[in-house]
């Protein structure tokens, strides 16, 4: 795998593709590869694209990728689709909307199934992004599953998050419910050629304005556990997500969208929030990994029959759950 790392760093696409498979499969030895690649990461601009199924995420990524390519930047795309809980299989059709990008060696598209993960990304998506970052791609788009709910993983991974809406998707109320506005850095109303687009724009703007300053701050802090501290300590202005109308298959509104993305990036840089954001992402990731590692270590240290015995005693009301935890920790 040492060879794969070197080849990937030198732009070998086949090696990159194979390494991504190993990362996705959490293959034995891949930790060393990721460690070797890590010093080469931290350069890519990671842009998340989320929103309900069928709103046009893939079509938008296609249009955006073309726009960034015209500016001479290389683009990687990670498109995440749900794994069927029944069979463990998946159908991933995002490439259908990305055919304009075929034949361009400055673009690399990878489809990824969630494999049981629930937060809108797969467990290995973070590492997949890292490999693409080390491979030198300037911009990395991450299209989430689009369940519309609990898409929290993406804001812990991307620097800029686009939330895509489309007219007639029962948007308004649902968007608030799903907390989708809280994660948006840029809001897109795609399918602006469809009736009702203006209503959707108006509804979104009204909701954004509804948040009076205090509420806005709350939202920002929530999004951010990430940016708020940096922002206020810097006296910088709050970022209000712009609403951009697009017709993705016609490339309409894409220049405006690119401009909105750029200004969000500038905002992060000027507010000196980029490093704060990264620090938060690292912190969250570290806790995630610690949790998983500690749990694995604990389970290894405890004989299996101890656990089943404890479960039996809890059910028999001989032991309450918290005392059981204390007992287990003492034994480990």
């Amino acid at each position, binding site marked *: 795998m040492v060879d794969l790392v070197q080849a990937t760093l030198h732009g070998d*696409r*086949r090696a990159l*593709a*194979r390494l*991504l*498979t190993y990362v996705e*499969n*959490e293959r034995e030895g891949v930790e060393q590869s990721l460690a070797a690649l890590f010093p080469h990461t931290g350069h890519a601009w990671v842009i998340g694209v989320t929103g309900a199924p069928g709103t046009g995420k893939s079509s938008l990524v296609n249009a955006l990728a073309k726009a960034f390519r015209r500016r001479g930047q290389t683009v990687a795309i990670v498109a995440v689709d749900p*794994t*069927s809980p*029944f*069979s*463990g*299989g*998946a*159908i*991933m*059709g995002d*490439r*259908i909307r990305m*055919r304009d990008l*075929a*034949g361009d060696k400055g673009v*690399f*598209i*990878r*489809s990824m*199934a969630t*494999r049981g993960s629930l937060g809108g990304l797969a467990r290995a998506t973070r590492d997949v992004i890292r490999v693409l970052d080390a491979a030198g791609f300037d911009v990395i788009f991450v299209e989430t599953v689009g369940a519309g709910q609990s898409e929290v993983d993406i804001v812990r991974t991307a620097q800029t998050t686009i939330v895509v809406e489309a007219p007639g998707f029962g948007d308004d109320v649902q968007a608030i419910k799903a907390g989708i506005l809280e994660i948006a850095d840029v809001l897109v109303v795609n399918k602006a050629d469809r009736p009702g687009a203006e209503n959707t724009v108006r509804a979104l703007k009204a909701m954004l304005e509804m948040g009076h300053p205090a509420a806005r701050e709350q939202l920002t802090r929530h999004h951010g556990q990430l940016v708020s501290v940096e922002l206020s300590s810097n006296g910088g202005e709050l970022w209000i997500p712009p609403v951009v109308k697009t017709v993705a298959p016609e490339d309409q509104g894409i220049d405006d969208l690119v401009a909105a993305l750029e200004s969000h990036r500038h905002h992060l840089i000027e507010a000196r929030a980029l490093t704060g954001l990264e620090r938060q992402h690292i912190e969250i990731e570290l806790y995630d990994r610690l949790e998983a590692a500690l749990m694995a270590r604990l389970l290894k240290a405890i004989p299996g029959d101890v656990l089943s015995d404890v479960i039996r005693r809890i059910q028999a009301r001989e032991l309450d759950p918290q005392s059981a935890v204390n007992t287990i920790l003492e034994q480990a």
Partner: protein
Amino acid sequence: MTTEQPIRVLIAKPGLDGHDRGAKVIARALRDAGMEVIYTGLRQTPEMVAEAALQEDVDVVGLSILSGAHLALVPRVRELMDDNGLQDVALLVGGIIPDEDVPALKAQGVSGVFGPGTSTEDIINHIRQVVASRSGNNG
């Protein structure tokens, strides 16, 4: 993790015919058999298929061809895949393929040819077999 990893399959429709019902039926059957299927849609050029197979690092590429252009398209896809270093990746062809063309296709690096009457079960078994026989050297 030592659990078995899903087989990855690219399903593509090269050529100009505009029917992808069959391809979608196969895609669903493979998903239901626990495979990860990347579906690329209609009117793919051989270049697009070979490039997608490379990026997605699939185990198997399945081509659905109804247009009668299989003798031109299939060898070209195989050649481009080999150029991309994908000699290990199995190539399957489904669709309307006359019996007399099957030997020629197989001689050109196609592992299986499946006509309209084929059961999805046969395709699933074929894929599992070629992937199992191959994974020895691929690890």
